[in-house]
């Protein structure tokens, strides 16, 4: 699989705080990479670097094999990076079509082409198997999972190659979470690279191909989901491995299985 986005040695300093130190991250097309870590581990900072909200102090970003710079959100969008933020950027009073096309309405001469927008919105939601009562219903009437689905669907209208999802299942119920996870799998089927930030390791294990752990602003681990246990991820997040006892246990019991590229 081709690598779409690759970050190498990313560092970012805010005053006295070294938020990121030499962080690497690689996303292939059709791959779901989960970015996990405790609060303050640098997940949000890394996401902001990728989406162009902040510029890193050091390191390099490669897009489809070519070195590139992302200095503002617009750069990220033109490259093909779509970000779905944690606090959904939807307008409750507009209907689903209105929200999907907000800021990029179809039409000519300032007059909206509602029919074309509605048609394409229905097609888009059908491709993603998003279930909502009607595309003409106000966002306020939808459940949390449906809203999240609409927010994700909206990010796809710009035809991105990478989708960044910041805590898409936070505050969602069991069934709604399943809807969103289904949607993430559908993004993968369509060959998109997905970066998923989540605190919920069950979700991560359910949907991600790879788990990248950040700890205190550094790479804390990079596992294939298939060959890592829940406990190992937790250990990497909390740093429980970073002591003599744990390291010894790891050597004797697992013989190095699972970890392929611990930084």
């Amino acid at each position, binding site marked *: 699989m081709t690598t779409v986005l690759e970050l190498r040695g990313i560092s970012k300093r805010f005053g006295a705080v070294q938020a990121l130190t030499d962080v690497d991250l690689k996303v292939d097309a059709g791959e779901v990479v989960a970015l996990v870590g405790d609060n303050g581990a640098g997940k949000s900072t890394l996401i902001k670097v990728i989406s162009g909200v902040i510029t890193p102090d050091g390191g390099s970003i490669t897009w489809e094999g070519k070195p590139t710079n992302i200095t503002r959100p617009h750069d990220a969008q033109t490259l093909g990076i779509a970000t779905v933020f944690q606090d959904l950027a939807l307008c409750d009073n507009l209907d689903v079509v209105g929200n999907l096309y907000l800021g990029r309405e179809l*039409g000519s001469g300032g007059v909206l082409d509602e029919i074309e927008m509605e048609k394409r919105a229905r097609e888009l939601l059908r491709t993603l198997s998003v279930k909502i009562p009607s595309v003409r219903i106000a966002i306020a009437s939808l459940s949390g999972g449906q809203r999240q689905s609409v927010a994700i669907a909206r990010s796809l209208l710009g035809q991105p190659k990478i989708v960044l999802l910041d805590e898409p299942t936070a505050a969602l119920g069991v069934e709604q979470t399943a809807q969103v996870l289904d949607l993430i799998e559908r993004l993968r089927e369509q060959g998109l690279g997905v970066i998923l930030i989540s605190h919920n390791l069950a979700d991560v294990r359910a949907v991600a191909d790879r788990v990248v752990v950040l700890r205190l602003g550094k790479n804390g681990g990079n596992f294939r989901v298939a060959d890592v246990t829940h406990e190992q991820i937790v250990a990497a997040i909390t740093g429980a491995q970073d002591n003599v006892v744990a390291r010894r246990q790891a050597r004797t019991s697992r013989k190095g299985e699972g970890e392929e590229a611990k930084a």
Partner: protein
Amino acid sequence: MSTEVKDPTSAAVDPRLLVRESGVKGYIDDFQRRLKGGDLGALPVAIGLIIIWVTFYSLNENFLAPQNLSNLALQIAATGTISVGIVLVLLLGEIDLAVGSVSGLTGAVLAVLNVNQGMSAGVAILAALVAGAVVGALHGFFFARVGVPSFIVTLAGLIGWQGLQLYVLGKEGTINLPYEGGVAMLTHTFFPHAVGYLIGAVIVVVYLLLDMAGARRRAKAGLPTRPISESVVRALLIAVAIFVAVYVLNQAEGLPLALVIFVGFVASFDWILRRTRYGRMIFAVGGNAEAASRAGINVRWIRISVYILSSVMGAAGGVMAASRLFAVNQSSGGNNELLNAIAAAVIGGTSLFGGRGSTYSALLGMLVIGSISNGMYLVQLDSSVQFMITGSVLLAAVVIDSVSRRGRQSSGRA
């Protein structure tokens, strides 16, 4: 991304979805659901208006006489025009307290240019509207650019522009407009009977044609369409309303130009709000400014432009008020002009919380307020009672807004 359907069954409908049944039962179910959910729309106002009309008619039969209804139409046109601008500001979730003063100021500008400077009516009206736009741009600048709360910016405007109005009017304080002048014609022109019916017929035919063209395009695109019967019933209702109104007005002097201007503003701004990119942006900023900004909408520019429009509509209302009174004086735009304009928008159903409403609420709300003051004048109630009743109606309207908002929240639609 491919848009073809991979698996048609995957689009299966969630069994809990609200599917509207066809036929009359569907409409009744839909109506009951909306009632419970607090999605009342124009219903409370329409009921309130009927109660008001029946009450005043039983107190004084002249209330529903053609001549009085014709007067009512003229009475609401000026303040109603101002109220259309207020609706736009309320949609942003903001307030414009200066529109009354702006209407007085621009009326003064109009009178000075038209009478003292001898400019033609058209140029003077244009200058008044431009003056309104400049004032609105100032409000917008201080609110959207500098970041002063809109309440304070326009409160300063309320006081300041009134001062400028007195200054512009000069020592005498009153400027009379010629009875036969172009400005006076605005509110003292009545269409001949046949022309009135013709205007009504054109509106109905255009509405029906647009509706049918839209339905055909939707059908062609494979989208769910309203049944033809519904379109026809809607067109019929509109036709009946328009022709009854024109018939009644024809029993008096005929269809007044001022009413056509007012309703024209209402309909055009409604079209702009619902059918253009600009209108969509106004709703988006009013619903969630942060989301609008992230979607690439220039929130600052939308806010400034809406304040410009609000003041321009204030100016248009000022021109119409001056035209109706044949004069501009120191109290023009004072009195209750501002409060009535805001009350009308809110009574008509535009939410104070932003993002919900329609310019038709200016028309409906103005009919309510106009009917109350007209009726009370007719049954010779003291103005003290009039103020108290208008205040109560405004409070009732805001209570309905707040309660229905709570209803929407509890049924997950806030």
